[in-house]
Structures are given as C-alpha cells and as structure tokens.
C-alpha cells in the first residue's frame, strides 16, 4: 500500500498585511496578512526549502524520483524538478518530472507518485508543490494570493498516512487561466466560476465517499481547496461538514491562497495535528478535482524536527511597504542602471555544479581541513587533490563578520555581506537574506538557504545565501 512517509513545508518569512494594501489603494482592508516570497525567492527556491524540510533525517540517496508542481515555474522551457533535485543533493540516477499549468498540479504529481510507488518503478518519490503566483496590482487576487510550498515523501512502507481511496474528475472548465502573453491570472465572472467549483467538488466527494462507503461524519478532518474564505465555508456547508471542528483551517488570513501548493500545504497542517488512526478527506481543485481519503498510522506522531506549516507560519517579518513589495516582484519600470548588467557563465556553473547547486565543499583527507569553494590544493596543508566531498547546506553556523552595503546592485538594500563559520568546520562567504539589518550581531546563529542570486544573461542564477536561523514566535 502506498502512502505518505513524512512531510515538509515552506512559508517565506515576509508577510504583507492587508492593511498595507488597503492603505495603498484607499480601500477598506481585509483581515490578516499573506505570505510573500522575498525578492530572491521563486517556486524553485521555495520547493528546495520544502523538500529539505521533508527529508530531514531521511537518507537523500534513498530518493528515486522528484516530482515538482507549480503554475509559476520560473522557466517556460527548462525543467525545474532537476534544479530542485540538484540543490537537494539527490542522486543523479533519479526520475524528475515537472507538473504544471494547473492549480491541481500538486495533487496531479501526488497521484502520479502514488502510482509510481504502487507500480514499483520507484521506491521513494518526493512530491513538491510550490507556487509564487503574481496577482495584478489593485485586483481582488492581490489580497488573496500568497506564496509557499509543501513536500510529501511517498513510499509503500514506513507510512505515517496510507492512501485509502482516490477519485478524480477532469474538467475542461475555464475558471482561471493565463495565456502565453498574460502576466496575471484572468478569471470569468466569479459568481459563475464559484458555482461550478461547488458543483465539481460535490460531484467528486460524493463519488469518493460512495466508493469508500463513508459519510461526512466519518472524517476526523477535511482538507479542501477553496479559492477564498467565503467559498471555503460554502463548500463545507454543501458537504455537510462540521466547519468548526472537522475542517482544516485554510489560513487565508495568515498565508493566502498559494495556488498549486495550497491544498498540500493545508494537508501538511492537518498531518501536523493528526492522531493515529485519523481519517482525512483531502480534496484539491483545478481543471477538475482530485480527492483522496487518507488514514494516519501511529507513525504520524513520530515525525519530528519538521518546520512544516506551524513553525513557518509563526516565524515571520512584516513587509511594511508596498513600494518594497513592488521591488520584490519587479512590478514597475525602474530607473535605468548605468552599471554593467549581471552576467553568468554556464560553462563555469556546469564545472562547479556540485558546489554551486548543492553547496558541497571539501574536506582534506590529509589534515581534515574544510574549505569552500573547492580548490585543487588544500588551503590548510597545501596537499594536492586529496579531498572528500563535504556538504555545508545542512549545517548551522555563526556570523563571524558582516557589512551592510547601501550601493550594491541588489533589489533589497542594504546588501549584507558576511562570513559564517559552520559548526563542525568550514567558513562560507555569503550574502544575508531574510534579515532585519538592525538585528544582526556577530556570533548569531545562521543557516544556508537556496536563493536566486540574479537573472544575468537571461538565466535564473541560483546559489546559496545565509539567513539568521528562523525562529518561531516562541523563539525556538
């Protein structure tokens, strides 16, 4: 039987308060806030975060496939899953797929992973859904859409949740779409769109529960995709679910609708709270509907050290200005830069792919010295070519020194340069992201994070930065 071994999630550190949007557009503002990707984040970098969260304590060499799902893949032509797999330091002989174009692509990938495991073509598959959809300024979706990612590890043993029943419908229905030329999502009249949404979900869930011979009361928790909060309440009512006690909070006032990642992020929230033997109804929507009944095992209580949803949601920083948000999403015509543009060299990146994508340094076999970036000669003992790989991406370190450059060619100034000394050895010269410049202190705990450095030469150039270790509201 196939199912979920463990999970991970990622919510970017920035929150844009609805009051900020209200103040900019002179409208009455809604409640709460939404999660907004930093300027150096996109669907790929957030996927890497969710995958590494999911694989904590799991041997990365045991992964046979990585399925990536998003409606906002940074490349129109070029696979994202392969980049995520490289950054997560997975094996080279694995299967990578991108699932795209649909709000349902996250569960499309999940269903494919379940089938792969059942068919025996893969033993372990990581499914990651990540989305960073761009809403039009001053639109209804601007206050609605959030950014984030979730990952699930699928296998047929050591399961913490088993897949009991599945039912899917496909639909050609156009509710929201983007053509090749569209920058922002479009939508038909909302009243029509939402009535069809309710119809499709009802149809799917009804077929699923009949198949399973279960009724609404049999579920401990229902995780249901909805475009917004009102529709979420409507669908719960239509399905006769106890909204207060048995429906997973969709987090519209904390996270926002995170597109293809949304239902999987909600599922992670539900799994975080689940007890052994719980039945979970899981429904995702978009171009049809995927529905799954999961049952948790006693293994569910043993999942530890995941930041998941709860921790990430309570670890946050305000994005206080709309101007900064416009810069983050590159939404205006900006003053022309007189300095030469960023550029890249793909030959160089290819030669150094292990150190650039996976943050792999070296440990000298002669003296044990650790160095990054890799060299031909040990910088500690000057012996030639006697190294083993040494990964820095899963290490924590301390801020050794830093500077705050107000004139660098960066979106979010100051550009904070630093060196970080890792526990267990190795020093990394880097940029600090997800930070409050006022709160930096020598010695503070730091951790690596995979980010987009720049778009020079028309390439999304990814590499690692560091950030102050994310702490939740309890300061843990």
């Amino acid at each position, binding site marked *: 039987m196939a199912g979920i071994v463990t999970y991970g999630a990622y919510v970017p550190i920035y929150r844009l308060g609805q009051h900020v949007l209200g103040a900019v557009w002179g409208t009455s503002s809604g409640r709460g806030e939404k999660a907004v990707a930093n300027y150096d984040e996109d669907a790929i970098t957030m996927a890497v975060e969710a995958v590494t969260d999911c694989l904590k304590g799991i041997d990365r060499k045991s992964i046979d496939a990585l399925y990536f799902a998003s409606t906002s893949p940074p490349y129109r032509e070029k696979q994202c899953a392969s980049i995520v797999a490289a950054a997560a330091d997975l094996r080279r002989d694995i299967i990578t797929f991108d699932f795209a174009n649909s709000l349902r692509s996250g569960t499309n990938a999940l269903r494919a992973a379940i089938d792969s495991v059942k068919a025996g073509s893969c033993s372990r598959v990581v499914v990651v859904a990540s989305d960073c959809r761009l809403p039009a300024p001053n639109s209804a979706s601007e206050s609605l859409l959030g950014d984030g990612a979730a990952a699930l590890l699928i296998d047929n043993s050591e399961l913490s949740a088993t897949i009991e029943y599945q039912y899917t419908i496909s639909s050609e229905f156009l509710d929201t779409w983007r053509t090749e030329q569209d920058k922002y999502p479009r939508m038909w009249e909302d009243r029509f769109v939402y009535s069809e949404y309710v119809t499709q979900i009802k149809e799917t869930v009804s077929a699923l529960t009949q198949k399973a011979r279960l009724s609404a009361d049999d579920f401990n928790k229902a995780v249901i995709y909805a475009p917004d909060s009102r529709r979420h309440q409507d669908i719960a009512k239509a399905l006769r679910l106890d909204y207060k006690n048995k429906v997973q909070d969709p987090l519209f006032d904390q996270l926002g609708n995170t597109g293809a990642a949304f239902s999987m992020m909600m599922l992670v929230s539900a799994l975080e709270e689940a007890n052994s033997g719980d039945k979970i109804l899981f429904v995702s929507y978009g171009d049809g509907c995927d529905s799954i009944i999961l049952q948790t095992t006693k293994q569910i209580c043993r999942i530890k050290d995941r930041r998941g949803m709860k921790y990430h949601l309570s670890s946050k920083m305000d994005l206080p200005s709309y101007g900064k948000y416009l810069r983050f999403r590159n939404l205006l015509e900006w003053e022309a830069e*007189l*300095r*030469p543009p*960023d*550029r*890249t*060299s793909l030959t*160089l*990146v290819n030669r150094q792919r292990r150190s*650039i994508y996976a943050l792999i340094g070296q440990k000298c076999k002669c003296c044990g010295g650790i*160095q*990054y*970036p890799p*060299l031909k000669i040990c*910088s*500690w003992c000057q012996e030639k070519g006697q190294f083993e790989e040494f990964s820095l991406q899963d290490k924590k370190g301390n801020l*050794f*020194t*830093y*500077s*705050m*450059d*107000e*004139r*660098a*060619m*960066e979106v979010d100034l*100051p*550009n904070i*340069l*630093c*060196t970080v*000394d890792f526990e267990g*050895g*190795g*020093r*990394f*010269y880097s*940029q600090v992201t997800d930070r409050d*410049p006022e709160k930096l202190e*020598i010695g503070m705990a730091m951790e690596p994070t995979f980010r987009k*450095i*720049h778009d*020079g030469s028309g390439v999304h*150039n*990814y*590499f690692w930065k560091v950030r102050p270790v994310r702490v939740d509201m309890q300061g843990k």
Partner: protein
Amino acid sequence: MESIKNRVAVVGMGCTQFGELWDRDADSLVLEATDEALQDAGIELKDIQAAWVGTMLGMTGMVLSSALQSQYIPVTRIENACATGQDALRNACYAVAAKVFDIVLVVGVEKLKDEGYGGLPLGMSADGFHPVYGAHGTAPGRYALAATRYFHRYGLTREEGKTLLAMISVKSHHNGARNPKAHMRREVTLEQVMKAPIIAWPLGLFDCCGVTDGASAAVLCRPEDARRFRDDYMVFKGFGLSAGPGMGKSKTDYDYTHWEETWRAATQAYAEAGIKEPRKEINMVECHDCFSIAELVAVESMEICERGHAKEDVDSGAWTQEGEIPVNLSGGLKSFGHPIGASGCREVYEIYKQIQGKAEEPSRQLKDVRLGLAHNQGGHPGRFICGVAILGASQE
C-alpha cells in the same frame, strides 16, 4: 638573495593634479606626469631606455608608448589591482639593478571617471569573474567586513568604532586640504564624517577614498649615476611584495583584523632595509587607505603600531603631521585620491618631495625626513596582494 638597498635611485618624479578630470584623457595624464618627471631629472624622452606602465587600462605597454609617441623602446604593462603602481616601480628597479638598463621611466595612470557612475568601474573590484559566489560584493562592502570584526574583537561599540575611523578620515582630509595636487581639498569635521551617508556599514562616505583620475611618474637610474642628474636624489632601501593565497574569506583561522600579506610585505621590506624598529626609524608613512579601516589595520599589520592599539595612536594624534609618525601626510588615497594604477607611484612621489624638502605647500613640509614607507595594496581583506617600499635620502 641580495637586497635592493642603495642599488636604485629616483632622480626625477612627476604627478598630475588628481581629481575628477572630466576634460582630460589618459594620454594627456601620462604625458603631463612624464614631462614633469623628465624635466625634474633634466632629461628628455629619448634618454629613456625602457619603460614600465602601471594601469588597469588597455591591454599593453602601448598605453604609454602611444601616449608619449616613444620610438620603439621596450614598455611593459604591469597590473596588480590597486597594488599596480608600486609593482611597476619595483619591476623597473630590478631591471636597473641588474644593469640591463641604465635609465628608465615608470608611469602609473588611471582614468576612472569615464564610466557614468560613482564607485569603481565594475569588474575592477572583483578579482576573477564568478557569476554567483561573491556576486554583488563591492570594495567597500568587503573592506567593511574588517571594520565590523575589528570593533568586535577590540570591544568597541558601534559609536566608538565609527568615531575611531572618522578621526582617521578627519586627519586625512586635513592633510589633503593643504596639498595642491590632491583630489579632495576640503577639511571635514568629525560630525560631518559621522553623519555622512552610509556606503557599506560601518563605512560612511568619508571613510571611502576618492574615485580619481590621475597619473604619476618616476625616472630611475643607479645611485652611482644619480649625481649626473641631481644631488638630492632618493634611493630605494627595501621592497616587499606578498601575494596571499586568497582564502581568508573561506578559512576559519582568518580574523580580518590582521592582514598577513601586509605583515609579510613589510617584514621583507624591513629586512632589506635593515630596519629593526619601524616606528622609531621611519619618519613618514604613505599608506594605502582606500578606506579608513584600511589605514588602521595596515598600520597595525606593518608593526608601526601594536595590534589592537590604533585607538591610542589616533586619540593621541600620533599619525598627524605633528605626531610621532605621520601617516598619509599627502592626504592619502582618502583625500589625495585613488587612480588605481597611479597611487603606488604617487605615494613614492610624496616621500620624494618630503625627503627633498620640496613639499608643494610649505606648511606641509616635515623636518628632516630620512626614511619613508610606501604601502600599496590590492584586493580586499582575505584576498590581498600587498607591496611595501622603503625609501631613503641619498646620504643615508
């Protein structure tokens, strides 16, 4: 191994006005500095047997031969980032000492203000192109790493650290304000420096040197021939050049507050010159203060001031014109300006004029300068190339 001591003499020097020279090109700067140096030596271009040009410009020695229309003599272009100027002198010295040539010309030149933006032309501050590792690092951003660490190591608060650096800049501007050829001829107050916009915390605008156009030149020969040109010539006493392995930013034993390359270059130069106690024996220091923190750490690393004790020196005014050991009497890179390839040679020009008692502005003249030190450094903390030259009066 033999020392360079007393084997090469400087018999003529020139230096253009430094500044944002919007209406000057590199050719005219080369020509002006060379003309002054040749005139100072009392010779003509046709007397020069070989030349070295230090610059980040161009690709070849033709930066010089084309500007001067020199006729087919050998010209070597030297580039060692910001340490270029002194290295051009150093290489020319070895050719003269080897007696391959008898009289040679050295020119350092840079034309930085043709880019359309402030700061250094990009690519110049980056050592080796890497698309992502160290991306968006700038010279002030990298030097500021040393400042933050210095404050931490020696227990200075942000305010105390900023004040210490500001006092260095106030001193350098005071010196440069009275130097006719300097780029920034303006006194600044401690308050102005402290309140200036931040460039790269903790470095503010006045902690950073000028981005400058300019050229400087020298005519070299052997001391036995020097009297044919003048009596008050100057001789090289020692040279040190140290290229670090460049892994400071990556090695946990590097702490930014001591610059090994600087110490090694100074140690070599002291050994060649036979200097045992640099603070007592040397009369003046021209230091590569591209940033205030650079002057502070370099002076400590050259053992002119004990490590961690710069604050006492700065507080007591030890590095001022009236102090125990004047540092950057010229105004330094800070105030005199920093045309990359020209600075190393320009530092030697200041020592030359001081030794001769010919400082352009009499109030700047030190009494009885016998030995001067010129420090010229390229790269950034953790990844340096450093040159130190000791120069002395002919009679020494």
